[in-house]
């Protein structure tokens, strides 16, 4: 029992990270109907930016952990947002109105470009980092197993919840969020109401990239090692999460992320660590075959 509880905690933490990335996939799909395959690599860039910022801050002698984390978060999210904006501007906007496959191909090209850029500029070797926060809460002990909730996990979950709360408020309550939802539901009509649709699409990429960068920071803190290739696996898992939750649905993306995190962790704990990625991707196949609209996908019938 204690062992399972520990896995639950670990799974939820990992799921939060996937959920943050999945939101970016689902938002872009909702608004322009394409899968942004470069999104996972924006997450990877965010992780590298976080590492650079943390090393830079410690070189400057800033020893307060919350301050360093907050500054890193702002830095990584800000720069990654510029990456997100550029990707849309360079690789997708010129192809708008082209055949459907065109932006998909250029997304894959963008993904490879970003990966190679990180490999060339940061080196191909795995980058380790000293744990920033150590220790934790001992919850219970049973069956000779101690259930621990680490400070790191608490920091990850709390930060993610705060970021998601701000994001939810932005989408549901502000004029910007309403414009985004209008574009998502009917791009042509949004234009007829005077919404600058190109600008709104750009902002969607900017926000998605900032969330991915937050996930990158969390990933770096949690695992302590990153390399230029992490964007691919994490990206495909987050994409799976988005599909499982119902692509286009924002709560679905978070829910899907949590489920994928739990599945991966429980699979590793009880079956085999080597095949944990297989477990996650089998879910993608099963979801696509039996439940293509996902858990929270749209089934509502609209009158015409």
């Amino acid at each position: 029992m204690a062992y399972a509880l520990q896995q639950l905690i670990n799974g939820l933490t990992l799921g939060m990270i996937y959920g943050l990335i999945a939101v970016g996939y689902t938002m872009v799909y909702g608004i322009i109907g394409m899968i942004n395959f470069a999104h996972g690599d924006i997450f990877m860039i965010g992780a590298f930016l976080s590492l650079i910022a943390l090393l830079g801050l410690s070189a400057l002698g800033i020893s307060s952990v919350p301050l360093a984390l907050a500054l890193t978060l702002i830095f990584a999210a800000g720069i990654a947002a510029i990456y997100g904006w550029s990707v849309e501007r360079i690789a997708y906007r010129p192809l708008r109105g082209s055949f459907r496959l065109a932006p998909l191909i250029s997304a894959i090209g963008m993904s490879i470009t970003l990966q190679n850029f990180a490999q060339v500029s940061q080196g191909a070797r795995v980058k380790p980092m000293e744990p920033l926060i150590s220790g934790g809460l001992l919850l219970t002990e049973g069956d000779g197993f101690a259930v621990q909730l680490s400070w790191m996990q608490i920091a990850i979950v709390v930060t993610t919840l705060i970021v998601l709360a701000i994001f939810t408020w932005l989408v549901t309550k502000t004029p910007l969020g309403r414009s985004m939802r209008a574009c998502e539901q009917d791009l042509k009509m949004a234009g007829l109401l005077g919404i600058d649709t190109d600008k709104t699409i750009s902002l969607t990429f900017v926000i998605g990239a900032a969330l991915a960068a937050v996930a990158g920071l969390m990933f770096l803190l949690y695992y302590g090692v990153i390399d230029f290739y992490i964007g691919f696996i994490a990206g495909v898992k987050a994409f799976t999460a988005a599909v499982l939750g119902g692509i286009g649905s924002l709560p679905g993306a978070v829910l899907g992320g949590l489920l994928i995190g739990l599945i991966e962790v429980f699979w590793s704990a009880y079956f085999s660590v080597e095949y944990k990625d297989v477990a996650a991707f089998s879910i993608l196949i099963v979801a696509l075959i039996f439940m293509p609209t996902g858990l929270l996908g749209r089934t509502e019938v609209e009158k015409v």
Partner: protein
Amino acid sequence: MSALLSLSGVTAYYGAIQALRGVDLVVNEGEIVTLIGANGAGKSTLMMTVCGNPRARDGRIVYGGQDITDLPTHAIMRRRIAQAPEGRRIFGRMTVYENLLMGAEVSGQTDVPALLEQVFALFPRLKERLTQRGGTLSGGEQQMLAIGRALMSRPRLLLLDEPSLGLAPLVVKLIFGAIRELNRTSGLTVLLVEQNAYQALRLAHRGYVLVNGAITMAGSGAELLARPEIRAAYLEGSSHSA
């Protein structure tokens, strides 16, 4: 009367297909002008071309004394032109209130409560449905919402595309009554596209007939109604629906 909107020699294409062939059309300040024609004649295209989507390939579109031919859609719509488009295009997953807000917000209208009251005065039904999702409304209610949303931007020029399509005669009467009322009381200029030619010509000050992307006839509503070729082509079997 001064021209609020004028098109001269406007052509438009969908890919390689020419949808408009040198259209000349004038809508004066305070007028209701209707555009009638068969399915596929280019009525909706003409209305969308005024809004810059698709863009006019040749010719000029002048609105309020300014050339708007090459402006992007959102810039055109922010000059107080509003459209209730073909198929209504309600945001189905937004509430009625949010749909109405979308009309006001982007065009920078700040007095939302007053604008809402004005819309509710025309269509009291919308007030009852305020928190309901747009997708759950009936066809007639959706049309009211589409017009209400357009009015929320306090337009000088209202473009209405087939507001009567698929609606019960009683609802059509209500909606046409609302258009007449708006024009009379606040001098709203309206360009109305209709298949229901009889109703449209009775409502409008002037009308144009569009055939295969070109204007073939123009005149006052009464004049066009009296023409035998109009009666034959557009009014046969529909006059009873008055």
